[in-house]
């Protein structure tokens, strides 16, 4: 080997080159392993080792980052560490500079979960009597979630399918990692402060216990509890509950289900409106029926006030009106059944004013409706209302029907 062809470098230079390669090549890594040798330095920085069966790596977490970590790491804890590789030149060491540590598995988180659950339960945050009832027909819905996640898309598609007569307000929030819980809580608080929605849905799609951890944090639980607007939790997990599920006014296993629970199906509501309409027409129909005989009878009385020829003309005119009316009604019915459905058409057919057009009349005495011969006496002044106007008349005889 010829030294001319070899480039000789100093230790500092080679270390600097190694540093460059490592720090560039491992600028954002996720490392899974077990924590050991945890040292919580008085400076607030943490020094520890992440290891598995085959290897180990030194790690450091600076104070500023430890402050936002939702739990305290312990030796033996299985974790996923996110960070970058840095090289400490004076010692020629490389280490994992940690941005975040997530516990794996149930152990640590389960303990934190149970502890918080017991605490909030004891405080009464889960009490049924605190639960708000949801509006039957909300018009404005607030959603606190990631604006780009699958959860928001799922919910919006449920709303457009089921009940699009809605205004949806999305409050973007991180739903995972450091600061997520605070953003979700702030979103719920903001919607309360603005007071413009009828119901709030918060949550995210499914994930591991670690992914969903924000929804097990006290700050979110308290924001949900403090909400004066009904809240639906929509954290995507089919089996487990989150702390927020216990506090929310309604718990849904997924965002899609939350959206389904929040609004009724449009076709079901249309059916309800149709049922109301037909109940209404039936009720009015029978009311008209009970008045019909009386009205018929009063028309009879009216006829005695007029010369026979006028009466005949009148009857002919009424016959004519009825023909025109039927023709017009048939036409309108055809139009309506095309556009608004048979329900409206049926209602139109039963409009009581059509009874007038068919030749029935309404009799009033001193402005009030006369529905019985008992209400009038001979020489009373009465007004007879017909489809196209009214006539003043004097009662000559009153003959109550004896057969009824």
């Amino acid at each position, binding site marked *: 080997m010829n030294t001319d062809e070899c480039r000789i470098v100093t230790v500092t230079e080679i270390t600097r080159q190694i540093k460059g390669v490592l720090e560039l090549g491992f600028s954002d890594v996720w490392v899974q392993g077990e924590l050991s040798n945890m040292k919580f330095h008085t400076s607030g920085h943490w020094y520890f080792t992440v290891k598995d069966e085959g290897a180990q790596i030194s790690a450091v977490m600076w104070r500023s980052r430890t402050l936002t970590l939702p739990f305290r790491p312990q030796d033996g804890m299985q974790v996923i560490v996110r960070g970058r590789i840095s090289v400490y030149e004076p010692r020629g060491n490389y280490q994992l500079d940690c941005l975040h540590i997530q516990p794996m598995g149930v152990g640590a988180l389960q303990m934190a979960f149970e502890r918080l659950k017991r605490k909030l339960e004891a405080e009464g945050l889960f009490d049924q009597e605190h639960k708000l009832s949801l*509006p*039957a*027909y*909300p*018009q*404005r819905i*607030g959603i606190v979630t990631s*604006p780009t996640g699958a959860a928001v898309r799922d919910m*919006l598609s449920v*709303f*457009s399918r089921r009940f*699009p*007569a*809605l*205004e*949806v*307000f*999305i*409050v*973007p929030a991180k739903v995972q990692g450091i600061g997520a819980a605070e953003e979700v809580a*702030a979103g719920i608080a*903001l*919607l309360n*402060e*603005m*007071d*413009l929605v009828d119901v709030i849905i918060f949550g995210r799609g499914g994930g591991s216990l670690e992914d969903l951890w924000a929804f097990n944090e006290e700050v979110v639980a308290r924001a949900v509890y403090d909400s004066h607007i009904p809240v639906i939790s929509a954290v995507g997990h089919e089996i487990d509950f989150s702390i927020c599920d216990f506090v929310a006014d309604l718990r849904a296993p997924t965002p899609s289900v939350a959206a389904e629970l929040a609004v009724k199906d*449009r076709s079901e*509501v*249309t059916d*309800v*409106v149709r049922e*109301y*309409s037909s*109940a*209404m*027409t039936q*009720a*009015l129909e*029978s*009311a*008209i029926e009970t*008045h019909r005989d009386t009205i018929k009878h009063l028309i009879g009385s009216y006829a005695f006030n007029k010369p026979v020829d006028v009466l005949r003309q009148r009857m002919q005119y009424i016959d004519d009106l009825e023909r025109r009316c039927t023709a017009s009604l048939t036409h309108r019915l055809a139009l309506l059944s095309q556009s*608004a*459905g048979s*329900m*409206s058409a049926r*209602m139109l057919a039963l409009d*009581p*004013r059509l009874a007038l057009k068919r030749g029935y009349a309404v009799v009033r005495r001193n402005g009030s*409706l006369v*529905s019985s011969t008992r209400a009038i006496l001979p020489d009373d002044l009465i007004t007879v209302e017909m489809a196209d106007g009214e006539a003043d008349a004097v009662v000559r005889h009153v003959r109550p029907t004896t057969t009824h």
Partner: protein
Amino acid sequence: MPSSATFDQPQHTSMAKKQPAKPSFEHSMSRLEEIVQTLEQGDASLEESIALYEEGARLAKELNETLAHAELRIQQITKNINGSIDITDYE
């Protein structure tokens, strides 16, 4: 930002109050239900019944129109660092 409304935080509570201009869907539904009940009880005079029927028919028509033609409106609320709140269309 296609359409954007910005307002300062101290003002927003009054601006964000629910507008009573249009009766809400829920209100119309419960009024319609009430009318059906009154008509079914049969205590009202024919004149009252007719007036109730007309009101009910109008409500049913409006509700059906809302159900048939409504489109989902989506907006996004952002709170800025200075505390002001933006409501923008969500794309």
